């Protein structure tokens, strides 16, 4: 079992003929994801890699193929429009990989998506994977294995690092979800924790946060009041200076708010396990699974 995507996920790729879009589409197909359509305006009627039909619009793609999920690899200035197009066309889940989307664009996109009852993951995220079933985005499939742990993270490569260490230690995953490093994103930690709590196959959750904002503190509060499954947390950016954007647009300590210390305190107050180092996840998760 898994959250958000599974073997029945039918995917349309926006920007399928671009450099990143084509590379990752091949990887997704290789992993076993049902990629049913691609969209590149002006290239409708072509076929990607001889198997995936390309359409001019997401409407056409959904209409002709029954796609229910979209993944976006378009340049940042076009990403807001691409998200809204996918939602308008009826995709229930839209995963935006694109990095560099202006935050003011997201202030319009967020309510648009919510009001239509769709789920947006990202932007600026690596997507998600349900090992053995489906992957949508760019998480390398070979570092994952099916198993009982739910993984949710604001990061990309740090997630891979931790998932890889779990897999090497023989601990597989139900789903790994990258929610993205931007200040405004469609899906937050709580959305994922709630889904993992409901998923009968998830027995423990690994959560990787970082400096900036209050998403982790709110998540800790949710864990305290609504989670029966053990959750282990980690915060990146303990050595980050205040006022500087640490790569991710959302990873910034504003004034004295959003520090690693306050987030770790919140985790402890919620009774969560706290990983000091990435490698500590292995023992803490093992203990949680017992």
């Amino acid at each position: 079992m898994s959250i958000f995507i599974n073997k029945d996920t039918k995917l349309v790729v926006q920007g399928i003929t671009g450099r990143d879009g084509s590379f990752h589409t091949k990887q997704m197909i290789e992993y076993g994801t049902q990629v049913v359509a691609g969209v590149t305006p002006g290239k409708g009627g072509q076929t990607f890699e001889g198997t995936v039909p390309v359409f001019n619009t997401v409407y056409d793609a959904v209409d002709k193929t029954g796609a229910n999920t979209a993944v976006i690899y378009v340049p940042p200035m076009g990403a807001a429009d691409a998200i809204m197009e996918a939602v308008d066309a009826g995709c229930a889940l839209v995963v935006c990989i694109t990095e560099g989307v202006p935050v003011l664009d997201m202030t319009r996109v967020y309510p648009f998506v919510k009001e239509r009852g769709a789920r947006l993951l990202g932007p600026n995220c690596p997507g998600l994977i349900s090992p053995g079933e489906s992957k949508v985005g760019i998480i390398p499939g070979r570092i994952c294995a099916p198993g009982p742990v739910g993984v949710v993270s604001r990061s990309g490569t740090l997630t891979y690092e931790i998932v890889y260490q779990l897999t090497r230690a023989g601990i597989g995953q139900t789903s790994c979800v990258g929610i993205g490093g931007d200040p405004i994103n469609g899906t937050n930690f709580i959305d994922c924790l709630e889904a993992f709590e409901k998923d009968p196959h998830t027995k423990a959750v690994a959560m990787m946060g970082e400096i900036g904002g209050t998403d982790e503190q709110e998540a800790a509060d949710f864990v305290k009041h609504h989670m029966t499954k053990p959750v282990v947390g980690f915060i990146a950016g303990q050595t980050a200076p205040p006022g500087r954007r640490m790569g991710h647009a959302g990873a910034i300590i504003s004034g004295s708010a959003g520090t690693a210390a306050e987030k770790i305190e919140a985790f402890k107050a919620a009774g969560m396990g706290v990983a000091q180092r990435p490698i500590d996840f292995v023992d803490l998760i093992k203990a949680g699974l017992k």
Partner: protein
Amino acid sequence: MNIHEYQAKEILRGFGVPIPAGDIATTPEQAEQLAIKLGTAVMVKAQVHAGGRGKAGGVKFCKTPADAKEKATAILGMQIKGLTVEKVLVTVAADIASEAYVGIIVDRSRKKPVFMVSAAGGIDIEQVAADTPEKILYLPVDTRYGLRSYEAMRMGFFLYSDIKLVKQAAKIMQQLYAAFMASGCSLAEINPLVGTPDGTLLAVDGKMVVDDNELDRRPEIVALRDESSEAPSEVDARNCNLTFIKLDGDVGCVVNGAGLAMATMDLVKYYGGEPANFLDIGGSSNPEKVVNALRIITEDANVKCILFNIFGGITRTDDVANGIVTATKNNPLKVPIVIRLTGTNEEIAMKILTENGFTASNDMDEAVKKAVQLAKGGKAA
């Protein structure tokens, strides 16, 4: 991206916000001439990207042009939080009857721009928020509809009782909001918004921070960038498409991905060292990026050891290995290097490195420990 006060004021003035007259001086003589031209008492204000300019002595009231020259002499060239003052703003000193705070920030939890207004202006708004939160009105704006008239009026009434001031304030809220949206800001503030004894409102200080993600579509904002106010290594890195932040430690870090880069810095600290920088070479493994990253890091004289931490997903570790070999062939390293890489094409990468006289490991903790030891002048185990 930060812009200077005088630049923010120019933008706000363009949207109709009332701003006291003034201009920029880079010499004491220019400051004197501006004071003569303005024909009144002036403020001389340091233009640097740092808060607390007043406390640092970078903002002075000057009664006469001679006074302005003297104060400008003191302020130009002074250091504020490590930044050298190269420009001052010489501006009409306003008569102050009241001081309010007006700001807009993008609020992450509400997922909207939120106005913060308070009649307790002129001081640190974070302090007001902590001590007397009831003195601040928070007003989220739905950017699909923009700031509605009634919302602007509500903020005006929160700040003032005189209807003339309320209406002026409401108009300024609209102008500030328009400037905020048009410039792609993540923050814009007027602090203080001064009420003069004759009943007019003036934006005496202005600040704008632009979302870096907006810059591709706002060349007019990019043109305002003042590279003299940034660390040269950070300017260099930006021009090479690297995300780099200089810190004070001695372990130079080269990592792919922002989260892993932060986690690597944290692990350096965990094992008793201090990171010299944050550096993310990004998702692509273009060897040229590795060459540039090594050049920028080795220019920092504090760096005693270089640590590579690469998790190959999309990034091919053999590309990174080739980058290291190329970079060090052209410019042999003067400090030790510790390489950790794992993931895509790890075996090929290890072979390339070994053939060129490097050692590498695939264990993150082991590599970080070794780098910290080497930076301290110790022998690696």
